[in-house]
């Protein structure tokens, strides 16, 4: 067209319209620490967000999966002929119909479609693609399966007994995974101890309860390239995993993530329904959408890992911890997902939350015919912290010490390198302890409530404290823990940030935009974050380990700084100033000394673009945190920073019903620095409620391998009237490596709740309970029995 580019852009540049016409002072405007509404909030609040459940592709079919009706059995015969004849059915597949499939998951022990054997009632036997979900469901009922039952095993300890049914060939002892860790010398630690205690803790099954149930759409193009509309938290690693399972070229898999209706770790692994949807799409040459029902979501998705944890701890009279010895038995379920690796995190709490000179840890994850366990916010740390912090209270009592003083005496400090090799460069642990205790008046209440235990009365009050250590600067569980960013600034000074980091509701998109604004001096609405397409965004290892703000944030800052350098150099050249004397503020190039505006950033960008030496501002950055991949003995500085928190909980126990009412939570969180105050408050409040559900109400009831309460009617999430008052303080330690000083916080707020609640119930009633959850019946029974060890 004949319109000169410069003339065209002059009419539409929005930032210039707002820019002052005459020289004017432009103030520095930082968004860090402000209360910023999430960028996706308006769409979510108004119902415009299109989740995968809202998406339909032209020509799409609906997939459904037939699952085992037996707990453990050999498949003798499958007859799909009647299902195939049902009008509206386009494909019925079994393992025999699939030309190639390999086991998936962390343990590579899980075939998508089971060929000869089922190991739990969730197991996939056949699948249907049909014109509607109703036809697909009707077709499933027409598939006949003949089984030959095999002896089942439902208890991890029983699965270790000689002669127990063996679940997987090549694993005759049913052990899916073991970990051994030690530092120091346990025998010496024990010899130095004045007090030694030992207890067994039992942790239960819970599940994520994402509002958006699991689902996927698989779509092949005519050349055989696959597009997956997926909810995964790990798009780049999963490309490779899908390729291995399906036997296709990973380069021809594109993963697009529509907005994800909750993750919390549940989408950290791939699951059979995803390859199955792909098989169906390939068989029908049509897009296939496969979305779970809520009952399926409850009954077949991996759970938080149930654990039996035996803990021995010792201390000296003067209040110094001497040793910890731990043995854990994890019910792995029938297959191995990330749940089996949660001991890795439990280990960190055992070895390094407090200073413990001698430590030993042995753990096994054992196959059973139960539901299998995956990753879930906190990743073993809720279980480990429950045991460790229950013991901290017991040791303090045995030593006659105040529980806060005892913890302060053994708490980590900045600069510490633990026996496990973790280096705490920033550490606000003692501040967290003092703040949470101070704001709750913990010590006075603890004394008074204990003294009131003997008094009669239906209701008893108690306070409990617990603290946590979690990775806050990524976790180098792969050889790399990095994240890439591509950044461009267009002719109108609009910034597009393409990040490898996925948004799963945690607010990373908003924080990344804020961090870029801080570097480039542009307003928030001048930034778009693209984070959901593996063909566009650069590599990342996924949403886990509370890493996204830290890793992706640093990566985005790196890309923004490179863009800034480029812009400033060009501005200096154009204006004839020294670049160091210039600044970027509110979309303007200004004089750094007094903020006097010189020219709109957009104008500079256009002059760069439409010049003889035409140039665009586009940068890339790859951030790899300065952390270590741990050695075979699980030692090494696995994270670039560590997060700390202490929480005090006050409860009221109804001794006539066993109801524990959580009245208050006082939390103090070392988050490095607050980036988005509104976002971090939401993270902490949501995490507290998730921890409350784990402590008090939630339990997936599994009997003989079958989930008995696969519905919200009987799986009790916390409801609004039960949510406690919260008093949250952020401890800003300004981590040297963190983006603007921040550390990860995603998992932290859920971790201590069960532990602090256990201590509060003990303070209220004098009865210590060693198993979760603290449902009214469990608490009532414990009060009657005066405590339950087993």
């Amino acid at each position: 067209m004949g319109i000169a580019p410069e003339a065209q852009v002059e009419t539409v540049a929005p930032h210039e319209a707002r820019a002052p016409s005459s020289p004017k002072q432009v103030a520095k405007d930082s968004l860090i620490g402000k209360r910023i509404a999430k960028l996706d909030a308006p769409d979510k609040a108004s119902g415009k967000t299109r989740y995968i459940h809202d998406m339909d592709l032209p020509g799409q079919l609906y997939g459904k999966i037939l699952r085992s009706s037996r707990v453990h059995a050999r498949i003798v015969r499958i007859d799909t002929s009647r299902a195939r004849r049902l009008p509206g059915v386009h494909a019925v597949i079994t393992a025999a119909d699939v030309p190639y499939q390999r086991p998936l998951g962390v343990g590579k022990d899980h075939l998508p479609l089971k060929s000869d054997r089922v190991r739990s009632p969730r197991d996939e036997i056949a699948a249907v693609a049909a014109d509607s979900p109703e036809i697909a469901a009707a077709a499933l009922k027409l598939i006949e399966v003949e089984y030959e039952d095999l002896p089942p095993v439902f208890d991890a300890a029983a699965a270790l007994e000689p002669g127990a049914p063996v679940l997987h060939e090549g694993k005759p002892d049913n052990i899916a995974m073991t970990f051994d860790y030690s530092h120091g010398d346990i025998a010496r630690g024990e010899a130095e101890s004045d007090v030694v205690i030992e207890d067994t803790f039992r942790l239960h099954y819970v599940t994520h309860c994402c509002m958006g149930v699991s689902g996927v759409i698989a779509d092949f193009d005519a050349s055989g390239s696959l597009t997956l509309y997926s909810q995964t938290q790990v798009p780049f690693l999963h490309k490779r995993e899908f390729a291995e399972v399906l036997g296709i070229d990973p380069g021809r898999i594109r993963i697009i993530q529509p907005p994800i209706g909750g993750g919390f770790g549940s989408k950290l692994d791939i699951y059979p329904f995803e390859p199955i949807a792909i098989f169906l799409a390939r068989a029908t040459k049509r897009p296939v959408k496969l979305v779970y029902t809520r009952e399926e979501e409850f009954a077949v998705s991996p759970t938080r890992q149930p654990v039996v944890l035996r803990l021995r701890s010792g201390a000296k009279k003067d209040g110094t911890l001497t040793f910890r010895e731990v043995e854990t038995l994890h019910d792995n379920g029938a297959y191995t997902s990330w749940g089996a690796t949660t001991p890795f995190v439990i280990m960190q709490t055992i070895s390094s939350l407090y200073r413990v000179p001698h430590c030993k840890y042995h753990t096994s994850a054992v196959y059973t015919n139960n539901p299998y366990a995956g990753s879930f916010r906190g990743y073993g740390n809720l279980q480990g912290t429950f045991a460790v912090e229950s013991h901290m209270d017991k040791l303090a009592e045995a030593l006659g010490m105040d529980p806060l003083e005892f913890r302060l005496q053994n708490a980590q400090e900045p600069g510490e390198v633990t026996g496990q090799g973790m280096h705490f460069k920033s550490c606000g642990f003692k501040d967290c302890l003092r703040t949470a205790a101070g704001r709750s008046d913990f010590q006075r209440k603890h004394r008074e409530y204990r003294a009131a235990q003997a008094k009669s009365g239906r209701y008893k009050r108690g306070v409990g404290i617990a603290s946590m250590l979690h990775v806050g600067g990524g976790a180098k569980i792969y050889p790399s823990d990095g994240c890439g960013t591509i950044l461009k600034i267009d002719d109108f000074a609009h910034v597009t940030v393409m990040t490898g980091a996925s948004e799963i509701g945690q607010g990373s998109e908003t924080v990344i935009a804020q961090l870029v604004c801080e570097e480039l001096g542009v307003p928030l609405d001048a930034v778009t974050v693209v984070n959901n397409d593996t063909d566009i965004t650069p590599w990342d290892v996924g949403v886990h380990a509370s890493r996204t703000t830290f890793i992706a944030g640093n990566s985005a800052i790196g890309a923004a700084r490179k863009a800034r350098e480029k812009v400033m150099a060009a501005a200096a050249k154009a204006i004839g100033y020294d670049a160091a004397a210039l600044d970027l503020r509110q979309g303007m190039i200004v004089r750094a000394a007094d903020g006097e505006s010189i020219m709109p950033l957009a104008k500079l960008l256009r002059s760069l673009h439409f010049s003889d030496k035409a140039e665009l501002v586009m940068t890339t950055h790859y951030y790899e945190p300065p952390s270590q991949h741990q050695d075979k003995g699980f030692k090494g500085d696995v994270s670039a920073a560590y997060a700390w928190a202490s929480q005090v909980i006050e409860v009221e126990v109804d001794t006539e019903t066993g109801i524990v009412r959580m009245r208050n939570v006082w939390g103090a969180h070392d988050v490095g620095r607050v980036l988005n105050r509104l976002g971090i408050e939401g993270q902490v409040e949501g995490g507290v409620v998730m921890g409350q559900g784990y402590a008090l109400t939630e339990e997936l009831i599994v009997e003989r391998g079958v989930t008995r309460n696969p519905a919200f009617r009987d799986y009790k999430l916390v409801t609004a009237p039960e949510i406690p008052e919260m008093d949250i303080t952020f401890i800003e330690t300004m981590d040297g490596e963190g983006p603007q000083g921040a550390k990860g916080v995603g998992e932290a707020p859920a971790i201590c709740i069960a532990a602090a609640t256990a201590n509060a119930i003990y303070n209220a009633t004098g009865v210590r309970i060693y198993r979760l959850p603290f449902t009214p019946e469990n608490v009532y029974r414990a009060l009657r029995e005066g405590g339950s060890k087993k």
Partner: protein
Amino acid sequence: MTADTYLAPKRLDEALEALRGGEATILAGGTDLMVQSQSGKTPIGPKLVNIRRIAGLAGVVRADGEIHIGALTTIAELLEHELVRTHLPSLAEACDHFASSQIRNAGTLGGNVCNASPAGDTLVPLLALGASVELAAKPDAAVTTRAMPLGEFIVGPGKTQRKPAELLTAIRIPVPAAGGVQRFFKFGTRPALDIAAISLGLVTVKEGGVLRHVRLALGAVAPVPMRGVRAESMLEGRRLDPALIEAAAAAARDEVRPISDVRASDWYRRELVRNMVKRMLTDVSQS
């Protein structure tokens, strides 16, 4: 779950004619029916009869010493109704603890009664209040009606004496004596949106400290909502004191027949019955 025929009569006699063949599924609020038909527990019959549009089947009136509640009266309407709040506070209390606002707006009293859940929230106060049900049918040209006490009407979990051609049209409750005592207590594991693990209803008259006409009803502790007849007879004509309260609470605990399920064990249900009957009677003794 699709019916061949869907009918939405506007008059009672039309509805009763539609029910005559006995192959009909009755739809009122739908809050139980929709869930149960989806899960396969209550398949919808060849004929689906929506009774929601029948005139005159909703509302609360007082006549002839009784409070007459139309079957289509919603739980939300009961909760707000002046006659219910004044004379049947234990029923109002049960309605207040009934599911969620959305369910209370759609669910009807007739539906709650015909669903005959052992844990049905309104059944316990209705039983304690001495309610009876009114059933209508149209075997030939004329509409016939019959009435029976609620305690006889419900015969098992989800089972009633309603014949397939009958429609429950109303619940009738004798107006309780002025100055009488009514209590309702529901125990779920959380304060909202829960199914009762146990529930209790108590209706009695305190005459100079002496209990008369004691009716204690218990929910979710037997196949049907039941009366605590042994506890009632211990209390009848007596003055409450700590020993009597303890003994009556123990009697109630011993006469219930709970099961263990995902919501509670039988042991815990019995413990709750004793503790909460004791709590309720202590409260009555002090009022």
